[in-house]
């Protein structure tokens, strides 16, 4: 469990399309490097964020023009990356560009992971927690 007050480190919205996966990954890594000394953890975050953003774009069932909202919060000893989509929950797709590997990868590299539906504003949110090691 997290303890202490959270600090919002980053918040931005991205178009819900495949091009945003890379942009989200890049932006989150910039913030992660400001807060986390362990490069291995930064790389875990990079991979997990890529999987979460891909899931939102591919499985999120978002309406036309929907956005992905990315937030990063830090607590005493953890960083939480939140990817929220304006879809209606995740459903499997027969033509998925994954092998159902996204969620297992995210849960393996993160300290823990939560899917919140509905979250803020009715969005589907993926919360991924990572150990915070200051520079």
């Amino acid at each position: 469990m997290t303890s202490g007050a959270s600090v919002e480190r980053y918040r931005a919205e991205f178009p819900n399309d495949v091009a945003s996966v890379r942009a989200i990954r890049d932006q989150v890594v910039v913030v992660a490097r400001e807060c986390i000394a362990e490069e291995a953890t930064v790389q875990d975050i990079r991979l997990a964020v890529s999987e979460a953003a891909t899931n939102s774009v591919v499985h999120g069932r978002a309406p036309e023009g929907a956005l992905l909202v990315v937030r990063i919060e830090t607590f005493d000893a953890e960083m939480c990356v939140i990817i929220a989509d304006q879809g209606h929950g995740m459903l499997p797709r027969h033509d998925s560009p994954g092998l159902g590997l996204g969620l297992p990868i995210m849960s393996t590299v993160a300290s823990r992971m939560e899917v919140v539906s509905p979250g803020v504003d009715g969005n589907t949110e993926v919360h991924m927690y990572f150990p915070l090691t200051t520079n």
Partner: protein
Amino acid sequence: MTQSGEPVGDQFVVRRVDSGREVLLELTGELDVAGIPRLSEAAGRLPAHGHVTIDLSQLSFMDSSGIRMLMSLDLRSRAEHWTLTLHAPQPQVLNVLKLCGFEDRFEITP
């Protein structure tokens, strides 16, 4: 504030070199869901009884979208009677293969 979808770093690029029944696919940059159509197109028709090398030495990042593509090529190689080698994966790419339990499925050369 809505951010653009423009990436900060290198774009994903695939280059195909054909030499008889030898095909080299050189992947550069970062491979995610956005790059899959380009890789699928480059790997469209591959020679029966030939050999395909995927050079991963310049690929700095790959997620499970890339894993699925590699698995698809592996299945095709068996059905279409050609062989497949992955060459020089960087640590991040090798790590994803291991995370998914697929590192032993491929012939990997240093």
